């Protein structure tokens, strides 16, 4: 957000440190924890769906992300990533963020 104030207006920024697939996210999570983590595909199956807005919303959200990308950047070329703003940034990596958290308590409570 600060970087957007430092550059000319008219930008459309996806404010992500990294853009990752869930599979890659699992790898980074495992590396950060020093544990083996497998990715299990959780795409909704037809029997999980009902006629509610939430259910349809999930189905469309998955479809949208797969086809156009979360930020729609596959169809909207005006979307820029932080490194494309031309402002020096220190966002940190997702893996480092994983490493910096205390996970044991939440895992034990799950």
């Amino acid at each position, binding site marked *: *957000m*600060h*970087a*957007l104030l430092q*550059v000319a*207006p*008219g*930008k*459309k*920024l*996806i*404010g992500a440190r*990294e*853009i*990752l697939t*869930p599979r890659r*996210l*699992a790898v980074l*999570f495992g590396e950060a*924890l*020093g*544990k*083996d*983590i*497998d*990715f299990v595909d959780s795409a*909704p199956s037809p029997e*999980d769906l009902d006629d*509610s*807005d*939430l*259910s*349809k*919303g*999930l*189905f*469309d*959200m*998955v479809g*949208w*992300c797969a*086809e*156009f990308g*979360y*930020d*729609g950047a596959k*169809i*909207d070329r005006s*979307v820029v990533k932080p490194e494309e703003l031309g402002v020096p940034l*220190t*966002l940190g990596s*997702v893996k480092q*963020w994983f490493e*910096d*958290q*205390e996970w*044991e308590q*939440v*895992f*034990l409570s799950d």
Partner: protein
Amino acid sequence: MSSAKPLLVVLGATGTQGGSVLAHFLSMSTSPYALRGVTRDPSSPKAAKLTEQGVDMVAGDFDDPASLAVAFKGASAIFSVTDYWNPMADVSQHQKAAAAGQKIGLYIREYETQQNKNIIDAAAQVDGLERFIFSSLPDTNKLSGGKYTHVYQFDSKGRAEEYGRVTYPHLWEKTSVFYAPFYLENYFGPLGALFRPKLVSSHYTGPPLSSLPSRTLVIDKVPRTRARGVLPLPLQSPLLAPLCLGTRLLRILAN
């Protein structure tokens, strides 16, 4: 904080995005902006803490345009953000949707779009405003040519963004749009268990993992303890994308 500094007004000051923006500027040895935070209840514990840190916390309600006009007075820059899921969790909104004969998802989409229109209308009237940062998301319905019509939490913002661009060209010359991705903080939020790896250990007695559609990750055993470090404070601490939610989360929200 010197009053000579330009004023940055941050909406959703006690929330994830607005709070992250304020935390960033508060972390600087010298903030380039005087900071004003807008929240519904300036007396809340979170708001009081921001006041202690030097933020001018003021009351503002996205449903009340007059309150926004007051909150925006003197702003050089405004960071705007609204939320879809809090209204979705509000029982009174469900009652209003039912009374209007509308399904809840569509009702909240329209509600959030109207909140954003109120914000945009107020921002367009601010003398001396130099920059408007609008937290939005793509209008999936429009961009997909009507293929995806139920991603209401995106479209509610994208439709308002289009309203601002068309209605207030002068404001939009001063505007940049921010898309927030999945929040890493969600791992520790109220629904964090739905995002976290499923623990598998000799003590695990739960149902077969294959029967848990919301679990995207599986971990072999309790991870070793790690000290909690100081979180980096980038422009925006919630960052990452894309991660799809599981159906179990939806059932919880629906209930």
